[in-house]
């Protein structure tokens, strides 16, 4: 900068404005290209993010100007008898969905990686449910869960076991939701793990074998450490995704029986659209946002530190 400005010759003076003009022109062009995205993000991402916080502390009815009410919305939400069950169910759903939706795909991927035949078929088949619209999968399972003529009770009857009430009983409703969720989501996890497994260098397995490690020791000491990063990333992603569970309770149970399946996002939806208390819904959303942002932040940290 300084060296360029020292020789104040006629040539240098002529170049200054053109460079400035080029800089301005470049910025104008760039922001011209950016303006569409800036508008979309501003209206549909950034502004809602800010408004989420503002609305949580306000009372609005969209006729009068909004009133600041401090923590009143949070008090309303916390005192709701469904508040506790919603968080417990969400946490329980997340834990159960992780047990099924995290362990099962990883084990499946390890087995698939050993197979030398039918690989394309198996990969295709496991991903098939992921491609169905979630509403289709959920309504399909609603039919399967029917206690009178559903597929599951028919299969249980076929092997002479008593049928279950599935969605209608407080003890099986939540696990039924977990089964649907796992069925329709496990394909993506499986394929991601499979891709990760294929990057493990074969020398590591050979070395481990020479050192006398058996099959399970090789999995324990080679496969898992080598896929540790992707396992961690997927764990965090899955926590964030499953804690937002909505479509399963919305379509299958309506939060029932006796609040056994009400989830945080479902309760949030009910506040806004059934109870007519949008601000309380926002307050609940803000609580969930804070919880999920912790996981998101860890996720971004982990993936930034390790991949690029």
């Amino acid at each position, binding site marked *: 900068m300084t060296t360029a400005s020292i020789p104040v010759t006629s040539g240098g003076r002529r170049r200054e404005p053109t460079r400035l003009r080029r800089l301005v022109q470049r*910025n104008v*062009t*760039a*922001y011209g*290209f950016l303006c*569409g*995205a*800036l508008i*979309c*993000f501003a*209206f*549909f*991402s*950034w502004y*809602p*993010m800010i*408004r*989420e916080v503002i*609305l949580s502390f306000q009372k609005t009815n969209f006729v009068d100007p909004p009133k600041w009410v401090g923590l009143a919305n949070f008090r309303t939400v916390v005192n709701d008898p469904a508040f506790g069950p919603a968080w417990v169910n969400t946490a329980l759903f997340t834990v159960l969905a992780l047990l099924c939706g995290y362990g099962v795909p990883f084990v499946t991927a390890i*087995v698939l*990686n*050993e*197979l*030398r035949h039918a690989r394309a*078929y198996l990969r295709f088949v*496991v991903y*098939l*449910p992921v*491609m169905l*619209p*979630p*509403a*289709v999968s959920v309504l399909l399972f609603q*039919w399967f869960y029917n206690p*009178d*003529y559903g*597929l599951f009770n*028919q299969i249980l*009857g076929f092997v002479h076991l008593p049928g279950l009430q599935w969605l209608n009983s407080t003890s099986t409703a939540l696990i039924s939701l977990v089964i649907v969720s796992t*069925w329709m989501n496990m394909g*993506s996890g499986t*394929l991601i793990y499979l891709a990760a497994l294929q990057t493990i260098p*074969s020398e590591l*397995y*050979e070395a481990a074998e020479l050192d006398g490690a058996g099959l399970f020791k090789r999995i324990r000491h*080679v496969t898992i450490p080598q896929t540790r990063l992707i396992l961690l990333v997927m764990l965090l992603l899955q926590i964030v995704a499953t804690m*937002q569970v*909505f479509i399963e309770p919305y*379509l299958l149970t309506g939060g029932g029986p006796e609040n056994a399946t009400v989830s945080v*996002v479902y309760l949030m*939806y009910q506040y806004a659209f059934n109870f007519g208390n*949008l601000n309380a*819904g*926002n307050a609940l*959303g803000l609580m*969930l*946002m804070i919880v999920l942002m912790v996981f998101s*932040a860890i996720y*971004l940290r982990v*993936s930034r530190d390790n991949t690029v």
Partner: protein
Amino acid sequence: MSNVTVMPGRPAGTSSTPAGGDHRGRPRRRPRKPINTQFRTAVSPHQLNTTRGRIVYWIVLVVVVVSFTAAFVFPLYWMITGAMKSTEELNSIPPTFLPEHFSFDGYLQAWDLLDLGTLLGNTAVYAGGAWLLTLAVDVSAAYALSKLRPAFGKVVLALMLSTLMIPPMVIMLPAYLTVKDVPFFHWNLLNTPWAIWLPAAANGFNVFLLKRFFDSIPRELLEAAEIDGASPLRILWSVVMPISRPILGVVSILTVVNVWRDFVWPLLVLPDSEKMSVSIGIASLSSQMPQNVLVASLVIASIPTIVVFFLFQRHIMAGLTAGSLKG
């Protein structure tokens, strides 16, 4: 399969003894085609090609194929054939494996009763428009951030990526309010395609994927075009876009599939039954339909995504791994 059953001239006890020591004992038998061990995995290739290894391998393979088919294909089979059964047949115990007679009445009724033509048409409009708008908006944004490098470009990028931290569900209420009454303009976008298109374009992950790809395009290429007198728009269209076809494919598929599969957002912003997407339309009428008609509508609603999957399997898998390794 045949490897398991055909074991001629072999003493019954040998299969349990550790294999490897008996190589010399059977010189006249043609060696079987070995199981491909080109990629070394956790299982040792030597163990895999012993007799016991083969038996275990084929048993595991059969078990996996059968159980996968039962878990993931059979429900779809049950869905497709269930739509062909009458209500009485659906309720019968034990169930019939094949429909008594193949009739497509269920499908025809579903098409008429649920007005699936309109619903599918709506969804196609939402997905197609979102696709075009997302490409236009996100590609030009990523191009500007990657190659034109404006002032505060890094800040803009950081703000866009920060939206990845906020799960979409938790801002759905304020986003809904924005759509209902857009600030400054006071437009009500409810029940219009814009309610789907504009938020779909605000996708930080797409911008990230595209920018990362554009960063890898050598500068010299663009400078050469610039010297030839091409405008930035021309460079984007004639140089950058053609090279970026793989990533454009990934972004396109992600966008279309996401809009097609989305449930919560269209549930909020498209309450009018004339304007619903196919998932919402079926869900809203599901309790009033006979079971076979409902199941038929589920089959019809899943055909488009399954066809897309058949056609673009490779791109979809690429998008999946791109999603997992983002940083």
